[in-house]
């Protein structure tokens, strides 16, 4: 059995509001990952996915603060904590070689006045090891070699400004740049959500190609598209209102969901099949709870079709149901 490369223990994160109020965007998130694993995290907008990503990277930048828990990354032969450390220290000593992030919407945020090769070179320069001298030629050679290895049209793409590339090309560049330091693991926040289905498939193909080539080994893939995760991820965690409510293999979670929220998500799926036409996907009424106040009882209770009076009183903890974790006392 391979050892863990990433561990998250009871992580809680909050945003501090202008009036001292707190939004508890992530609560009690725990999981671990083995080398080579693709973990998918899905949940509706505002459920805390991007916030979680900041926490996983140890990047709690005000107004975001850690509330509880720990995040550990394998560094050499030990697990190293990212919490309560200087962000620059984490960035330089752990993240550069171990974990890289593809931020949501990054491909629309590339510096418009710099060519792709310069943006990539900047990343290499910023992460030069202390004392390491690299001349410009060496740096640009590394940029070319990396883009070439992952099958990009180096001549054209590297000499382009972001605006002259399509959204799909820009996203492929972002992925190339994010992996240029050869991290062990990549955390991708909605890398394909803003792309059309054909471009999305191209980007997924590229990601699998990078995995095949061993450019990185493990990945956390965040999206709100559960069907996409079904095809991409080994394991899937479903988030609701800041918590993980179900976690299991892709097959278990998608084909045989046990938490009422996951079941509702699957029931709301749209499809191109003729048999589905005119069928009304069952939308869940109501909204997720406000994360400002302390929530008593199950967070899904106000919208759950299976809720009973106790659900509103008892806080739900993850427990094993049908071989996977489910946060519902009544799931079977």
């Amino acid at each position, binding site marked *: 059995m391979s050892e863990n490369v990433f561990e998250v223990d009871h992580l809680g994160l909050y945003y501090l509001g202008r009036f001292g109020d707190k939004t508890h965007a992530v609560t009690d998130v725990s999981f671990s990952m083995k080398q080579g694993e693709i973990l998918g995290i899905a949940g*509706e907008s505002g459920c805390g996915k991007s916030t979680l990503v900041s926490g996983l990277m140890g990047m709690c930048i005000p107004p975001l603060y850690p509330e509880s828990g720990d995040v550990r990354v394998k560094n050499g032969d030990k697990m190293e904590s990212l919490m309560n450390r200087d962000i620059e220290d984490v960035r330089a000593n752990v993240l550069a070689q171990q974990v890289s992030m593809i931020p949501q919407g990054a491909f629309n945020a590339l510096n418009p006045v710099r060519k792709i090769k310069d943006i990539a070179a900047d990343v290499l320069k910023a992460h030069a090891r202390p004392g390491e001298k690299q001349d410009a030629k060496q740096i640009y050679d590394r940029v070319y070699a990396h883009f070439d290895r992952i099958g990009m049209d180096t001549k054209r793409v590297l000499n382009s400004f972001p605006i002259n590339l399509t959204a799909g090309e820009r996203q492929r560049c972002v992925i190339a740049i994010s992996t240029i330091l050869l991290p062990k693991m990549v955390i991708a926040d909605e890398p394909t959500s803003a*792309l*059309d*289905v054909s471009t999305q498939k191209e980007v997924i193909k590229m990601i699998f190609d990078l995995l095949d080539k061993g450019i990185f080994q493990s990945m956390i893939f965040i999206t709100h598209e*559960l069907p996409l995760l079904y095809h991409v991820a080994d394991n899937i965690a479903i988030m609701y209102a800041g918590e993980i409510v179900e976690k299991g293999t892709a097959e278990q979670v998608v084909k045989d969901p046990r938490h009422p929220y996951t079941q509702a*998500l699957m029931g709301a799926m*749209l499809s191109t099949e003729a048999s589905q*036409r005119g069928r009304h996907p069952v939308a869940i009424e109501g909204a997720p709870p*406000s994360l400002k106040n302390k929530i008593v009882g199950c967070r899904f209770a106000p919208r759950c079709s299976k809720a009973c009076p106790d659900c509103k009183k008892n806080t739900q903890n993850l427990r094993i149901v049908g071989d996977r974790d489910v946060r519902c006392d009544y799931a079977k």
Partner: protein
Amino acid sequence: MQSDKPIVFSAKRISKDFGAGKSLKTAVKDVSFDIYDEEFISIVGGSGCGKSVLAKIMLGLYQPTRGQFLYRDKPIKNLKDHWNEVQSVFQDPFGCFNQFFTIRSQLEDALNILKDKPSKEEVRRRVDEGLKAVNVAPADIEGKYPFELSGGQMQRMLLARIFALRPKVLIADEATSMVDACVRANILDYLRKLKDELKMTVVFVTHDIGLANYVSDRIFIMHDGKIVNQGTPAEVLDNTNEPHTLRLLDDIPEVHKTEWIKNSHRSKK
């Protein structure tokens, strides 16, 4: 559909050019269609195929370079009058809200463009209704500014605005690309309801052919500026040979597909 309803939009061989000479780009190429009152039309295609340009022509933001485009039998002249009846939800939710005002005040302000201005209480009530329609508790956005919401939440704010405005014609461009399945189903249900109750005409622009299958009376498939396939969902999707439609169907990751993509990574284990 040969409808007996009046025609809302009529396009006769319209094209739209941008630039000239070497940099000439024809975004819409010789496109013709009629859209009838109370129809739900989906325009589906990949990035850059011309969907948004077509949507902007319908909104009067662009004039076609060639061909004839009519709204209820007349060319679009006065934009203010046009927008009193035709409203839009566009891609990029952040671009549509001013970062310096609260969401609530901007939603309420939107109602001020209407010719018959509703009363203050009515404005509040309609904004609340709009928020509920997109599954957001009004208390949750009270006092909040756009930068305090996630991307999907902002997209819902745009839809809330539409629900409050109740236009005769709605042009929705990628209105649900950033929300999850439940919210999407909710929004579609609500659009359907609005359409039935207000007898609204909806033009829905999307990448997602599955969504179009569920919701539309007719689907237009676009590719490279042209409409390459059109008809009812059954006509367009079932047993089609049209290659661009097939590609769109192929590339959508659906759970019932056994191998959407070759996942060599997973099979290694």
